[in-house]
């Protein structure tokens, strides 16, 4: 499968794994209808089961602490405590955390997309000796677990005096091999004849990248940008290892530390969780298509 893999579309007569469901055929109408209903019921039950943690998170965030763990569970709060959502801003410096998370996510995403898509052109569209060996080096590091070299990374950052700065995280995450890999895979699907024609017309390599290849790779750029943004926003280990001052913390670290200190304030913890997930939900719903494309591109090649 190539980078053109798109959102899986439904197809009629698709493979059935669930034995009790038969595809609709004229002769077996009643069973087909029954099967469809059974499938719907099954899917609804499974879907709800998967969603339960989110439902619980949202309802708990609107309760009093004492109402979170009740027997039996109250799925709909007796009264809605919307004030949790105003009080939390006074309890933890959430504005600072959100600002830090946003700053890191935007800067890292911008750098990753820019340098990644630029380098990918060198790997996909320019031929020179040593190129493929260099690419193998990139790929090989993707296979090495990050945990295996986080200590040397930390030593470098410590010697450079960058521990406990945002810069350390930016440097560590903005130049990853993943972006180069994803963009290269996509560039390979752009016909070389296009670049060749542009060369004949006298466009420089940089011109070809900027005016031909880049505009054609908008879907891949969007995928990379969204995946990087979400990964950075959600990252726990990076900030956990490198950031010690409270005023540099991201939402994830802030939330975790709040849980550690006020572990009995269940409702407030859930309120914070909801607020930390909300930006990602928004980004995800807007760019859903590109997430799926990005996964298919980097995954099946």
């Amino acid at each position, binding site marked *: 499968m190539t980078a053109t*893999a798109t959102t*899986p*579309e*439904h*197809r*009629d*007569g*698709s*493979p*059935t*794994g*669930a034995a009790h469901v*038969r595809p609709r055929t004229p002769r077996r109408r009643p069973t087909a209808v029954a099967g469809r209903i059974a499938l*719907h019921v099954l*899917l609804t039950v*499974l*879907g709800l089961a*998967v969603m339960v943690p*989110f439902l*619980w998170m949202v309802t708990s965030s609107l309760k009093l602490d004492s109402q979170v*763990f*009740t*027997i039996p569970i109250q799925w709909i709060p007796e009264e809605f405590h919307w004030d949790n959502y105003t009080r939390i801003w006074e309890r933890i410096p959430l504005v600072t955390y959100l600002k830090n998370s946003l700053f890191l996510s935007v800067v890292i995403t911008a750098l990753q997309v820019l340098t990644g898509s*630029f*380098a990918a*052109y*060198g790997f996909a569209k*320019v*031929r*020179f000796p040593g190129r493929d060996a260099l690419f193998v080096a990139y790929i090989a*590091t993707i*296979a090495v677990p990050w*945990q*295996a*070299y*986080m*200590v*040397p990374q*930390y*030593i*470098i950052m410590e010697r450079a005096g960058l521990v406990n700065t945002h810069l350390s995280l930016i440097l560590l995450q903005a*130049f990853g*091999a993943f*972006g*180069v890999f994803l963009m290269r895979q996509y560039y390979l699907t752009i016909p070389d004849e296009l670049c060749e024609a542009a060369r004949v017309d006298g466009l420089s390599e940089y011109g070809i990248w900027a005016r031909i290849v880049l505009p054609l790779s908008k879907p891949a750029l969007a995928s990379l940008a969204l995946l990087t943004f979400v990964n950075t926003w*959600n990252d*726990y*280990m990076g900030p*956990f290892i490198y950031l010690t001052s409270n005023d540099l913390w991201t939402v994830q670290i802030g939330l*975790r530390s709040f*849980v550690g200190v006020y572990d009995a304030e*269940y409702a407030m913890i*859930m309120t914070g*969780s909801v607020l*930390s997930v909300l930006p*990602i939900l928004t980004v*995800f719903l807007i760019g859903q298509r590109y997430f799926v494309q990005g*996964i*298919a591109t980097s*995954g099946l090649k």
Partner: protein
Amino acid sequence: MVSTTASASTPRTRSRLRRRNTLAGWSFILPNFIGFAALTLVPVVASLALAFMKWNSYSTPEWVGLDNFRRLVDSENFWTALYNTTYYAVGHVPLTLVAALGFAVLLNRKLRGVRFFRTALFFPYITSLVAVAVVWNMLFSPDAGPVNQFLRAVGVDSPPGWTTSTTWAMPALIITSVWRDMGYYMVLYLAGLQTIPGELYEAAKMDGASPWQRFWHITLPSLRPTTFFVLIMLTISSFKVFDLVQVMTEGGPGRSTLVLSQLIFREGIEQGRFGYSSAIAMVLFVIVLLITVVQFRLQQRKER
């Protein structure tokens, strides 16, 4: 791939073109490469060397050969972490794979609401780990948590203590991670299912194959490349597991969920034992590498 030098005629212009291409190529790669080399490539190579050195944050590095590994073999923490990491992988890999495949097959059809289900299933994967861990910790709460309330309702008299119990903390982690990851692998499987030609199913139906037979003899074999990829990704990510454990149980209770990555972090960054922690890292890397190679071999043999 079409060579950009295809039009070059004489050797002189060809070598000039080559030089120009090399220059152009490197100029594209360089901005990324500087950062990549300094902060990924160098650390990767350094961690290989460090594994054979004795080096603490206050001493100078000193070559000690296999000393770190000898210490490792005698360390109880190491064997516990290795056992726990393997336990996690053995639970996480098959369960996630089956769940992802099941949902993909179920959702690969024309049905009202199918889009919503796919979205709902995928969303846990991009939800922050901290939120996931915090919510599941509460769901698993032994006395009044929803999970145990449900278990009691279906007749389990003394449901497990989950994250408060040394026996059940790891299963709790596995359940949480399966829930979180299955949507991602489902997307991979859905993409794989799209590549199976519909005619195969039509032909099988004509021959009177039951849905189960069609799944077993068409869907599964056709999905082998996807399954191969999913298996490798899942195994690697299981052995790397870190942040979920760190946020949800911090390795506890006791050492019951201490995993290799955590041990590297504790020894290397918290304690400053750079050499010793790199030896653990080396073990982790070799395990991941071995599993990848073995799976690759198996896959190749099947294809032949």
